[in-house]
């Protein structure tokens, strides 16, 4: 039980947990104590001194240890000679705080004056104008004019790039250190820091590339002035011209809650996205998002977007009308009947997937989920139960992360798991290579790629500290990813881990369960709707008369699939871009991006969330479900075209995990703590209030048919002179929703292939060399990177970089062209 403390602020009484700082206690009473350096997510610093208040404490009689009483029987309160900083002073029983006396207001004004005399008064052109705590607090508490001479104001550089993504305006910086502390304490990337001292103190970055952190954008949100801005938004728009459109980031399976800030452009008359901001959801992303989510939305505006249907004529894809394309596709579908394979991905909404599933059921075809990992049916049965919240995990709980590099695969989960470890949760990181989570782990388990089964055995049946920590944990959360795994291996991993959770009694209760680290925003939704992965997709496609692919690009992942698809009778593709898969199609339909439409999606934690359109769709595009319905209708099937809302109604009326869930439930909010809202005079950042729903965690899906037992993956022996090539996931890859953004161009992983430096020495290769990987039957070419943290004898091949490796395989490696010979 938390200990509670009662105190008085400005004559009003409030009860808060012991350890709460005075500022936060005041917030509970809606009493404004201004702050700059304080941020509720960071450790208190007490640097800016604007939060000074008068603090009194009951006088205690040393002899009796009892409070001294006034004549009227009330406790005698003694005030110190100095004001105290409300942001660093924890509350105590019987404390009396005065936050608006003349002395306090004077002090506040003086501190504000100090800050303002060094601050440029360029609010009319500042990006923060309209949402600036300094501006707001000055209006409320500041001096009306400054007595210091303007001539002597230090003039400093205003456009200092800390990296290509974040710019610093040195004049506007008030040295509150929030950004530096965020990078150090939360992101664990202290790549920006203070340099020099006194009035010359300034923010610098010496990393290469500059400000090298995947969380860098968050510093611009929590900067209380306009000193830090993103290259994306600088001078982009005035804050009050923009609209806030709530949405969900679908770049990975965390499902961060975001806001698209949009504005109607005068020139084009079109509504466009100006920036992406986090939207507070303490149970999902708190108030943070990663840079991939923040900077890659540009794909929606790409000139490469498909806007008319295409049909193959004489070997060429040519533009045709919707009617013609639909009719053409319908004829093909009718002809194929049950010999049609339907392939979809987690980029689609539940409504799309539901429709597509119905479609395939009606023709008695197959509904296949195209993804890198398997085992979602297990997640559906033993995933996170309703009421779960990663931020509640602390001492007593155990988190096991198996075969995943969370920092790269799901950055926000990395942050949250790190947070839990810092609060005292036992963290076990099991992986074949070193990852950035190791540093926070209580235990690390290093196994060899290909020997995952053995490692699982050790955890499940062993007697080691790790096994004990897993079994005896009060709560157990297990993440598994696809680091070095293909579908077969991950299916096995999921089954074993699900068994572990069940046998140790860690299922069906809050803060327990299995989480798969999917690559796409709604992979879990697909599993909940009954989609399965297909380990023999090549055979399936080869045997099919036709293939209908929605939102997936299997060809870019697997060369076998390319050959199989070329043999397939016909191919229907719906997508945003003319992907490698679409290039093979007989008919291509232009679909819509997530920010252009509404829908629901399910995160890896099994939270169902709703998103509304933020911008208008490009003319000529349609939502995936309506394309499916149109084809079905034309083919004489029972499916008819419906709105997203109507499909949602059908879906939640049908039996299954979505049964009885309402839109209102998904859009429900409650007061979140800490309070971040932008309408307050002071706040903890520009992160947005969540007025659009926190989503709901789905009930566990026990009714689903039990998954078939997975085969034990064969342990691979690597012959002398050969390597084991394994696929791994990196944050910035060459996926269509990443490369289309100019912003992150510099950050996209360059090396496709990575070796331990010792292995590189053996084959006389150096970083940057062009390398050839000879796999059975084909070669992969790419740039070499070196990584001390990976085991010897292994080649890491990055997914979604154009290299076609989806499952571990033996390979030989040779140098084609050394880096030094290139110009």
């Amino acid at each position, binding site marked *: 039980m938390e200990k509670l403390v009662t105190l008085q602020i400005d004559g009003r009484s409030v009860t808060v947990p012991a350890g709460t700082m005075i500022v936060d206690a005041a917030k509970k009473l809606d009493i404004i104590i201004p702050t700059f350096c304080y941020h509720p997510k960071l450790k*208190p*610093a*007490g*640097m*800016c*001194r*604007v939060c*000074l208040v008068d603090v009194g404490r009951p006088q205690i009689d040393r002899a009796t240890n009892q409070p001294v009483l006034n004549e009227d029987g009330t406790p005698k309160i003694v005030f110190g*000679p*100095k*004001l105290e900083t409300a942001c*660093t002073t924890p509350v105590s029983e019987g404390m009396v705080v005065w936050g608006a006396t003349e002395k306090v207001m004077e*002090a506040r004004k*003086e*501190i504000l*004056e*100090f*800050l303002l*005399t*060094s601050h440029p008064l360029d609010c009319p052109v500042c990006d923060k104008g309209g949402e600036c705590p300094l501006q707001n607090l000055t209006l409320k508490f500041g001096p009306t004019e400054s*007595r*210091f*001479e303007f001539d*002597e104001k*230090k003039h400093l550089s205003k456009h200092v790039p800390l990296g290509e993504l974040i710019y610093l305006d040195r004049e506007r910086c*008030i*040295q509150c250190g929030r950004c530096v502390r965020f990078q150090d304490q939360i992101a664990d990337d202290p790549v920006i820091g*203070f340099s*020099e*001292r*006194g*009035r*010359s*103190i300034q923010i610098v970055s010496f990393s290469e590339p500059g400000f090298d952190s995947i969380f860098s954008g968050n510093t611009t949100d929590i900067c209380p002035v306009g000193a830090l801005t993103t290259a994306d938004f600088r001078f982009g728009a005035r804050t009050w011209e923009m609209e806030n459109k709530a949405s969900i980031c679908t770049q990975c399976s965390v499902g961060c809650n975001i806001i698209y800030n949009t504005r109607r452009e005068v020139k084009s008359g079109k509504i466009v996205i100006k920036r992406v901001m986090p939207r507070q959801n303490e149970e999902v992303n708190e108030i943070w998002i990663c840079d991939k989510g923040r900077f890659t939305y540009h794909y929606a505006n790409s000139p490469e977007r498909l806007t008319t249907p295409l049909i193959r004529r004489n070997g060429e894809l040519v533009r045709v009308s919707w009617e013609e394309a639909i009719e053409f596709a319908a004829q093909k579908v009718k002809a194929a009947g049950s010999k049609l394979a339907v392939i979809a991905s987690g980029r689609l909404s539940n409504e799309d997937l539901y429709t597509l599933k119905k479609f395939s059921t009606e023709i008695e075809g197959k509904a296949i989920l195209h993804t890198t990992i398997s085992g979602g049916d297990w997640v559906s049965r033993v995933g996170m139960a309703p009421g779960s919240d990663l931020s509640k995990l602390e001492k007593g709980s155990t988190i096991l992360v198996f075969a995943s590099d969370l920092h790269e695969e799901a950055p926000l989960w990395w942050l949250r798991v790190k947070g839990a470890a810092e609060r005292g949760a036992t963290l076990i990181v099991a992986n074949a290579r070193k990852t950035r989570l190791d540093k926070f782990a209580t235990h690390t388990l290093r196994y060899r790629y290909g020997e995952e089964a053995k490692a699982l055995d050790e955890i499940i049946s062993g007697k080691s500290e790790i096994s004990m920590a897993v079994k005896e944990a009060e709560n157990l959360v297990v993440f598994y990813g696809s680091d070095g795994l293909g579908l077969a291996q991950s299916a096995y991993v999921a089954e074993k881990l699900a068994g572990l959770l069940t046998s140790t009694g860690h299922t069906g209760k809050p803060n327990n369960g299995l989480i798969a680290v999917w690559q796409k925003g709604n992979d879990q939704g697909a599993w909940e709707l009954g989609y399965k992965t297909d380990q023999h997709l090549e055979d399936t496609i080869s045997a099919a008369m036709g293939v209908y692919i929605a939102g997936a690009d299997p060809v870019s992942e697997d060369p076998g699939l390319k050959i199989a698809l070329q043999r397939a009778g016909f191919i229907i593709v719906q997508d945003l871009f003319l992907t490698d898969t679409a290039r093979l199609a007989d008919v291509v339909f232009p679909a819509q991006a997530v920010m252009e439409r509404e829908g629901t999606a399910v995160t890896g934690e099994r939270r169902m969330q709703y998103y509304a359109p933020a911008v208008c769709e490009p003319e000529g595009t349609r939502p995936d479900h309506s394309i499916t319905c149109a084809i079905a209708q034309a083919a004489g099937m029972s499916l008819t075209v419906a709105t997203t809302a109507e499909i949602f109604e059908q879906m939640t009326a049908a039996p299954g995990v979505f049964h009885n869930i309402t839109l209102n439930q998904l859009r429900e909010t409650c007061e979140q703590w800490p309070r971040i809202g932008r309408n307050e005079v002071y706040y903890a950042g520009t992160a947005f209030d969540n007025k659009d729903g926190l989503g709901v965690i789905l009930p566990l899906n026990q009714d689903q048919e039990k998954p078939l037992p997975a085969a034990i993956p064969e342990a691979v022996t690597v012959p002398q002179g050969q390597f084991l090539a394994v696929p791994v996931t990196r944050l910035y890859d060459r996926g269509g929703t990443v490369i289309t953004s100019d912003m992150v161009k510099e950050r996209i992983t360059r090396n496709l292939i990575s070796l331990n430096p010792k292995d590189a020495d053996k084959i006389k290769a150096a970083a940057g060399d062009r390398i050839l990987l000879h796999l059975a039957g084909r070669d992969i070419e790419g740039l070499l990177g070196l990584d001390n943290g990976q085991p010897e004898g292994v080649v890491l091949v990055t997914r979604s970089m154009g290299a076609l490796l989806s499952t571990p395989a033996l390979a030989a490696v040779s140098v084609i062209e050394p880096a030094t010979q290139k110009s």
Partner: protein
Amino acid sequence: MSDLFLLRHRTIAGLNQLSIYLENGGFKTWKKAVTAQKPEDLINEVKASGLRGRGGAGFPTGVKWSFLPNNIWPHYVVANSDESEPGTFKDREILEYNPYQFLEGLMLASYAVQAKDAYIYFRGEFWQIARRFDERIAELTASGYLGDHLFGTDYSLRIHTHLGAGAYICGEETALLESIEGRLGQPRLRPPFPAVEGLFGLPTVINNVETLTNLPVIIGEGAARFRSVGTEKSPGTKIFSLSGRVKKPGNYELPLGTTFRELIFTHGEGIINDAKIKAIMPAGASSALIPATDVALDTPMDYESVPALGGQLGSASVIILDETVNISDLVKDTVHFFKHESCGKCTPCREGTYWMSCIIDRIVSGKSKKEDIDLLLTVARNMQNKCFCALGEFSTTAVVSAIDKFRADFEARLES
């Protein structure tokens, strides 16, 4: 000259050589403490002596030691050899000429709180002194005075040197700890106090060089001997660093309670050219300016009497100003010092020292308006009681007292 507890090298030639220090009874106290005394005995003796910290704040040393929790280990002791207060040069003399007595003191303090590692934090400019200390520590280790299982007991002690690199703020004890830990020398929030969460997050004692140098006397010769000089509340001797417009500047070890007059006129031999004395700064650049009235000159220099004059004894770096000095010039120096040394962490100090320096420059160069004097005073007052640490507060004392007591000097600049 009265008893010397600290500057004993002035009467014993070559005391900075180990053999000579040993010949004069050196490290006997140390050996006895480790082999025959309990740590509490040492703490009690120091408490009984009434020794107060010589680094500036005058906090009772024995009391400070007893704050260390006995359920958190290891403990550390850090010697503060940052000596950077303008006008202070006493620790340097000890470090160069009587280093072993200081080391023995540091060792006794370490034993008293059962620290097995102690650090000496030297200001970066004391680079050569620090090198000599590395040699001396090696020498003591070789001779069995430092190292493992001292004198066959379970107690082990290692001493390490750490060099600063030019930052006055690192004399402030928490900034000093940050600096050892490899960070910017910016002060830490308190609480937690270093006694509970100090170096590397562990209980730590931080003492000034002069404070520590007193210990072999107190432990070796007894608290009573120590108390035989000085005053009841400020016992012992103190090294007064006398500088400024006196004929004979230098360090003078005198009983606490000696008057300013005796220091300045007897030991310092009076004012250069026998000019008229104008003001005293008893605690370096951080001092208030005390007009040199007869009352002031006859005030005993101890931890109670100087505050009664509106000043602080601080580290007893007594700077003398005579009638040739225009006080606004002096204020310009102090303000520039603090502007240069402000660590930049907190708003009032970072901004205030900058604005004070702009205004005083204007005043001194004769380019200012009359209002500027009040503006300077306002800026200083606005800083007061709001800074994160004492440095910011220190920067205002000379300014406020100067304008208060010597406003005419500032006004004279306006007219020129």
